[in-house]
């Protein structure tokens, strides 16, 4: 669904700052391998979020002493996450209604 990737990334960053790979892994793990995020959509999304000012990025060293770009949620990002979650829930509810209606029709 369009827009959900941003929400997932923002939600993942509420726990701790992570690098891109970490975000992808976290989403995969938490969703029991159902959701996999490809690099091709993850990094453009992160760029988008950076532009919007919802996340901050800085270069840091990882545990293995490798340079990686860590993303942190900003206050604006936290607010945005709240909006996206409520929008998403509204949408899910709407879809549910349509499906139920369709079943009755069958």
């Amino acid at each position: 669904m369009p827009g959900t990737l941003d929400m997932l990334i923002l939600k993942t960053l509420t726990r701790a700052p992570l690098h891109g790979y970490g975000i992808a892994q976290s989403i995969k793990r938490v969703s029991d391998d159902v959701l996999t995020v490809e690099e091709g959509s993850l990094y453009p999304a992160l760029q988008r979020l950076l532009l919007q000012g919802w996340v901050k990025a800085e270069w840091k060293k990882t545990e293995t002493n490798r340079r990686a770009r860590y993303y942190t949620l900003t206050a604006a990002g936290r607010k945005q996450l709240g909006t996206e979650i409520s929008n998403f829930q509204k949408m899910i509810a709407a879809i549910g209604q349509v499906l139920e209606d369709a079943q009755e029709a069958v």
Partner: protein
Amino acid sequence: MNALARLLRKLTVLFRRQSFDQDLQEEMTFHQEQAAKEFEAGGIAPEADVDESETLFPRSNLSRDDYEDWKRLNSTLSSLDVYGGTGFLLRTGSLSEPVPAGRVSDGFFRTLGVEPILGRDFRPGEDRPGQPKVAILSYGTWMKRFGGRRDLIGQSISLTGEAYTVVGVLPRSFAFAPRASAELWVPLLDKTGCEKRRSCHNLDGVGRLRNGVTVEAASADMKTIAAQLALQYPGSNKGQSASVLQLSEIVVGKLRPTVVTLLAGAGLLLLIACVNVASLVLLRAESRRRETAVRGALGATPSRLVRQFVTEGLLLASLGCAAGVVLAVVMMSLLARLVPKPMAQGMPFLAVVGLNRHTALFAAGSTLMAAVLLAAAPALRLAFKEIRDGLTDGSKGAASRFWRRLGANLVVVELTVAVVLLAGAGLLAKSFYRLLHVETGIDTSHLATVYIMAPETVYEKPEQQVALYRQVLEKVSALPGVKSAGITSVLPLLCNCDTDWIRIPGKPFHGEHNEVLERDVSPQYLSTLKAKLLRGRMLTEADDANHPQVVILNESMARKYFPGEDPLGKMIGDGDLTPKSMRQVVGVIEDVREGALDDQAWPVEYFSIYHGPDSYFEVAVRTTQNENALLPVLVKTLRDIDPNLGVYGANTMNELMSASRGSLLHRFSTWLVSGFATLALVLGVVGLYGVVTYSVSQRTREIGVRMALGAQRGAIQWLVLKEAGWLTGMGMIAGLACSIATAHLMRSLLFNVHAWDFSTLVAVAAVLGFSALLASLIPARRASSVNPVKALSAE
């Protein structure tokens, strides 16, 4: 404010474009490195063979309904797919040729990690009933039958009268051993015949384990699901459990004992050869004591001397290895050619047997080990204080005796190993003989066989199929030299497959699976095989669709299901005793071995094929003449009946028997181990000869003294023979003890032969004793011809 901030950020991006791109580039690189690292750490999850299991068949086929439930309910596999065998009549030009094929679920190739080199894989959902008919070709078929045409993708081919669109071609390297002969692959599509029932077990599962999940965990998971299904569908699933194994176990598991035995045999042979050469090197070192001493006296340091020995050892071992490699290359191609093609197809690893990185490394490793052994022997022998002693020749010190004893001990080792190999070869040969002389219950000579697949589109109705049977039998029986011909659903000696669950009215029944083999045969079939009728009657032409169904039992079935009763006149039906399934027993025959030679004999029921005809059938023909000469005539006669018939697998019964997997494995291991044993015997006996000869040469003075003191020639000979006998005896006893132990280890290879087979062990002892006697007679004669005057004045 917010808008302003955003604008600012956008401007920064614009001005710092390059740095942004660099950052992104570095980030992506980091991502890929991490992913690669994780992939390596986790390893590629192994493939597992997933199947059902019950007491009689620890690994039995999976039914389609069960597969769908397993796929849905399991939590340990990242994917689960199924494959089954099928066959088509492929129409190329005017000829219809039968081609073996595989029927698979949509994700089969993805689960195996195989991607077509041309076209595409089956799409998810493409295996559902009602989907269009598509096929993926194997590389070999694409090249052989379609000339490797790239434009074949998207075109349709005719398989048993139906159009299938070719959507892909598999890579050349792809070989799936459990369905090795499959020339093309099609999705499952509609539920065929019995697949509508849950109890129809016709598929095999293959799944990929989730990362970190063990085979045991997956097995437990599947068993839990199977237990749930057994409760849910007691009629079909009672007693059905699950079996999960590594896929590699299915491919090489049966071969492992043979391969391990052969490897052990080769290792023992290498050991003997090394011991033999090492004792030769020792002897040479003994005669080079003076040389060593002189080198030492002239200032060669010990390390320089050791280096000399290491160089010599390396040279010897490398020359041996080089010669061995050349011989191995020749032998390997010869041996690989001995494997019949249908069997080699099931062993894709044979194609990569040969010189490669692994074998080169192994050869280098064994060369190095041999070199170390060969260098260590004389280097150790070089007790450095002896350098000085060595100069004073003729000193037969304690050291010399020690080395002579060591040589003798080594020869005992050689003889022990030779006995072990001889015993192994003897046991294998005996079990091979037993296997070929298994009571088959039929006369296998003068019997020709052939498989026929009739296009279902033409021979659709039972009446048409029966008419075809009659026509085939009539035409074949009219051939010159043919005495009789019969038709069956499955020929004997092939497999314990095609089973039926029975129930006998009036006997206690609790839904258990009374599993017996079912064979649908024509009236003349059993007499064509020369099966012996014990009671009642054989089938007749009258046992057709217009008459009540009857059944003939084999002796095992009569004994198992009618113990102490007369089975004639009794009824047999299916689990629900449906009226349609009821058959009356009219005859009992002596057991005909339906399964492979090394399989258990099973209860079998023979039905009249007129009651359950099929478009696929197998023909047996008894001739008075050479059955090999009959084969081409037979094939031509059948093709003349209808060119659309797929006629293939024409073979003689004797050939079918000797080309079966069990008998081939037996034959190969017998040949190879016998070869090893012969070489070992020669090496061991030559070693014995060397030790005894050396001992005689060292004792020339002693013998001279004895003779001077009046010892008879016979007594001197006895002296030498006694020494040889002592060594042989020790080797023999140790060898026999070891061979009982090793035979116990290889008992899974033995057929109807005990590990402690007395006659084999006695024969081995006799062979060794006789060869040892021959080898020691020569030095004994030489010893007795010593001239005492010369011997005493030699020093």
